[in-house]
């Protein structure tokens, strides 16, 4: 493509202010609006997408014929095996952020990206040891059921439902926006169209197939994800004889990696040799600069995962507590194995694709995995390369749909089972009525998700995932844990603790550096736009002077500079006319990005205080029953015949 044509495409696409999508981890530069897949190979992408969608739709069709009862809709009839549930948990958990995001962080920042992934696995120790089996033994369909066991059912279910919907909506928004950007970057269809496609597909699974279809979509997605990653890692590692030091040596010796490190550390790079620069990539500190923030995030992950309503729900799908245990073990094996693979994916992409190319397509590095796939298949011009890319892109798409389905099901269950049946109808609803209510709730939540996805276009939503975990860790986990293990815990305690935990987590984020502060945005981006503008002008002057043969590289660099300028300009335009953040602040009040280290202790503290101040008979009377049942599984909800 000639320089003129490149500029033409960009102009004709009307890159009006705001078209540059700056979405934190998932930022796509407008220069790549055409997508990572070349137009002549697009049919291949659609073919692979079509096959995967057809497979999941077939599963949904089979599931829909089975889903008649509430136990089927919410809990797949409790007939999912431990191994199946382990795969489904992995499918529910490995979101696009971990699949694409962590590989991307490793490709751009080396060690820190890998370190980031560890907490996501360790989180399952809490789930395994403290949460999975007791919840299976005493729970029915939702977080609300667990909290209502020995507490005032209406109050407990109301607060549990609100918390479930809040956590799920935060997480959902991040997934919808991320998904829209991702699909747009990969295949170039419009952002709005991608968001609607994700939403409609997910609704089809949830509404018709309930938990049965959701489970199978998650299993299919997890299997595809693991197969794709194994293939990529096999071919990445093969040239080094599957030796770890040899592979790492290639990373250290790679000039692209060395250049990236020297760009990241700035002046300190001056006295370092090339091999020292390369080695620095395998040491901490290139991405994560604040240890206390790291610890705070770690705390939110380790405790928040066990409080995630869509994860809790998965334990109601197996017949016994022993199967719940088996499912966590399988999930840990799959999730852990997958995160180890991302080390190779990320470092492989750093060598073969290079940080410059990865971040030129997406500043957060999300395209590292897909681009590595393209390279391994033979490159951007080869059939096989584009087939690999299409496959990884389709897996990423399936990933988003599967995670979103789990989240929508969790919030819809909270709406129909906890709020409508539990609170409004006073537990008097026929199973048929309840299944209908659950389906209607799913449609409502799904529509809300699509609407938020479209409204949040171009917003920075990356911190919403961390916020979802922080709220789950500060609100749901203290309540669930203390209800299960502390005799004195009662309704006042959980209502107070959950409210304070959730509000403090949200409040702290509102005054943190995560929010957009217009003055700061202007201070960084105004000089940036000016600098890029000047560089573009220089390059355009040079374009006339250089011989024909050198024009292509120059044109490419103009396109890249224009893309970078537009991203910075879009950030400026987004804050035009504003002087304070969403909550009226000129600068953040606290330096902490992750609120967990403050809000989690607050959540626990207020469950304690509330429980100690008020005495409740029911909470005490039901303690022996709860404690015996959670430990033995006596009278646990069994598998339903269908």
């Amino acid at each position, binding site marked *: 493509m000639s320089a003129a044509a490149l500029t033409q495409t960009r102009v004709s696409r009307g890159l009006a202010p705001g078209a540059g999508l700056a979405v934190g981890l998932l930022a796509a530069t407008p220069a790549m609006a055409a997508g990572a897949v070349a137009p002549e190979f697009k049919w291949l992408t659609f073919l692979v997408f079509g096959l995967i969608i057809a497979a999941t739709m077939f599963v949904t069709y089979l599931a829909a014929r089975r889903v008649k009862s509430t136990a089927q809709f919410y809990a797949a009839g409790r007939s999912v095996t431990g191994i199946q549930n382990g795969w489904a948990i992995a499918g529910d958990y490995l979101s696009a952020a971990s699949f694409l995001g962590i590989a991307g962080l490793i490709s751009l920042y080396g060690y820190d990206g890998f370190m980031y992934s560890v907490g996501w696995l360790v989180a399952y120790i809490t789930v395994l*040891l403290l949460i999975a089996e007791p919840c299976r033994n005493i729970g029915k369909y939702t977080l609300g059921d667990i909290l209502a066991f020995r507490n005032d059912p209406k109050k407990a279910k109301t607060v549990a439902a609100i918390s479930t919907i809040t956590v799920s909506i935060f997480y959902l928004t991040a997934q919808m926006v991320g998904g829209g950007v991702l699909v747009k970057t990969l295949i170039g269809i419009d952002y709005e169209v991608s968001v609607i496609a994700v939403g409609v597909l997910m609704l089809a699974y949830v509404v018709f197939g309930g938990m049965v279809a959701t489970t199978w979509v998650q299993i299919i997605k997890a299997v595809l994800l693991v197969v794709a990653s194994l293939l990529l890692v096999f071919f990445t590692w093969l040239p080094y004889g599957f030796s770890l030091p040899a592979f790492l040596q290639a990373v250290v010796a790679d000039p692209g990696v060395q250049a990236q490190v020297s760009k990241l550390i700035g002046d300190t790079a001056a006295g370092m040799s090339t091999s020292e620069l390369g080695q620095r990539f395998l040491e901490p500190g290139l991405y994560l600069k604040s240890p206390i923030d790291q610890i705070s995030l770690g705390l939110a992950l380790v405790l928040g995962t066990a409080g995630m309503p869509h994860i809790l729900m998965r334990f109601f799908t197996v017949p016994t507590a022993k199967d719940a245990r088996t499912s966590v073990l399988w999930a840990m094996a799959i999730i852990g194995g997958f995160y180890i693979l991302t080390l190779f994916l990320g470092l492989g992409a750093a060598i073969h694709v290079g940080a410059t190319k990865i971040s030129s397509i997406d500043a957060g590095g999300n395209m590292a995995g897909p681009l590595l796939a393209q390279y391994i298949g033979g490159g951007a011009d080869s059939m096989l390369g584009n087939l690999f890319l299409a496959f990884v892109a389709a897996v990423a798409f399936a990933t988003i749909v599967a995670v979103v389905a789990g989240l929508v099901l969790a919030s819809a269950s909270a709406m129909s089972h906890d709020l409508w049946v539990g609170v409004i109808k006073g537990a008097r609803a026929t199973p048929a009525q309840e299944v209908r209510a659950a389906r209607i709730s799913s449609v409502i939540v799904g529509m809300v998700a699509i609407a938020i996805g479209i409204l949040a276009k171009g917003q920075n939503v990356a911190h919403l995932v961390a916020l979802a975990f922080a709220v789950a860790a500060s609100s749901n986990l203290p309540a669930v844990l203390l209800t299960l293990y502390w005799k004195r815990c009662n309704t006042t305690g959980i209502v107070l603790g959950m409210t304070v935990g959730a509000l403090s987590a949200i409040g702290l984020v509102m005054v943190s550096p995560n929010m957009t502060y217009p003055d700061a945005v202007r201070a960084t981006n105004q000089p940036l736009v000016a600098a890029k503008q000047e560089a573009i002008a220089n390059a355009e002057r040079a374009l006339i002077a250089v011989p024909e043969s050198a024009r292509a590289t120059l044109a490419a660099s103009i396109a890249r500079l224009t893309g970078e300028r537009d991203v910075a300009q879009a950030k400026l335009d987004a804050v035009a006319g504003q002087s304070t953040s969403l909550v009226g602040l000129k600068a953040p009040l606290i330096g902490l990005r992750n609120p967990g280290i403050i809000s989690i202790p607050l959540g626990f503290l207020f469950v304690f205080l509330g429980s100690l101040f008020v005495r409740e008979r029911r909470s005490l009377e039901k303690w022996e029953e709860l404690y015996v049942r959670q430990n033995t599984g006596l009278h646990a909800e069994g598998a339903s015949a269908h």
Partner: protein
Amino acid sequence: MSTNTSTNTDWERIHAHPKFTELHDRKSRFLWSLMAISVFYYFLLPIGAGYFPAWFAIKIWGPLNVGLLFALSQFLVAWGIAFVYARRANGEFDALAESLKREFQEVQS
């Protein structure tokens, strides 16, 4: 929540039963110590990377350094804890819970 069967069960009697007390004592000691080990070991990673980066940079085997090995060891430790727990739960704890369940379900019927 509680079905007819559950209200008929004498939960207080089971709760006070020596077998249940034994199950509870052994299980809680085991669970909370594993939990403590896991949390302690995990937080060594961000603390080490944040405050002792020079240690993490020490090379052990070619370019493979302490930091990478420590991060990889996190996976092994997490899997190890899960394995140790599952073995004991599948054997000892499940057997105790089963014998309790048999005893009390027979009494009822």
